[in-house]
């Protein structure tokens, strides 16, 4: 026996909304094959947010912590930072150097694309590997400074 229910047209939106709750939710990164293209794209944003985050945190701290007697001056902070062990310094500096290097070089890669160059699959991969190589080199370079 078949029973049916009367569904008013006005409930269409709520039915649609409840159906949509069953759809996959972005970001569903694991369903994509890891590829250089989107990995580098994602890394650009992450490194940018990381670097700007440090910049924002320090300058906002400079405004709001200084009135409370926290010495945010470079003289004080660099002295305290200088007292840390070499291992700690390297553990902090290496990722920062890598983040800066990557964001810098991939930024240049984007500017190259913006001129219309290297906008082929071959070009995207070639410049992508170039960015990774330059990042490795500049990270090492910054760490031995």
């Amino acid at each position, binding site marked *: 026996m078949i029973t049916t229910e009367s*569904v008013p047209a006005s409930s269409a939106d709520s039915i649609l909304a409840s159906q949509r709750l069953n759809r*996959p939710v972005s970001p*569903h990164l694991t369903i994509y094959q890891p590829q250089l293209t989107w990995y580098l794209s994602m890394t650009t944003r992450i490194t940018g947010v990381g670097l*700007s985050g440090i910049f924002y945190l320090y300058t906002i701290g400079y405004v709001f912590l200084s009135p409370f007697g926290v010495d945010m001056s470079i003289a004080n902070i660099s002295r305290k*930072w200088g007292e840390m062990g070499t291992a700690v310094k390297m553990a902090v500096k290496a990722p920062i150097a890598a983040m800066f290097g990557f964001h*810098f070089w991939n930024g240049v890669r984007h*500017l190259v694309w913006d001129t219309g160059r290297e906008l082929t699959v071959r070009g995207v991969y070639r410049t992508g590997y170039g960015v990774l190589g330059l990042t490795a080199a500049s990270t090492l370079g910054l760490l031995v400074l």
Partner: protein
Amino acid sequence: MASTFRSTTRLLASRPTSAIRLLPHTRVAAFHASQRQQILPPGPQVVQGTVNDPVPIPTPNAAHGSYHWAFERLIALGMVPLCVAPFAAGTANPALDAALGTALVLHSHIGFDACVTDYFPKRQYPKLRSFMVWLLRGATVTVAVGLFSFQTNDVGLTEGVKKMWKA
């Protein structure tokens, strides 16, 4: 959710003559057969108009389009030499520091703003979106104030970075 689907499927399979109930107890097949590995729970589902409405086309505006794009690129392009020159030259120049600082604030703000636009969609989270937009604006203004104070009262951007890196 997935287990609910499975149990209802099994129920139907064992009793093929069971009653077919229509909406609103909609049985929706999972969109993907593979395991769902979602990072975030689904946000509120907002249906505006009907599903057959075309996507509204925004009014063309160069300030939000090509000018904005060119401005972003101009800042980014300027930052390439500005990031290298002060450190390569070895001297802290207040004018270069000011230029790098200004570019850094603008570039950071544009970057964070793109993140807010992407991760707090206006359609689903209108209140949170405007909160985040204003939070970012407040943060950027505070950063600008802090940076100005840092550049004028402290050692300046280039020298500061150098001191921290070589400490």
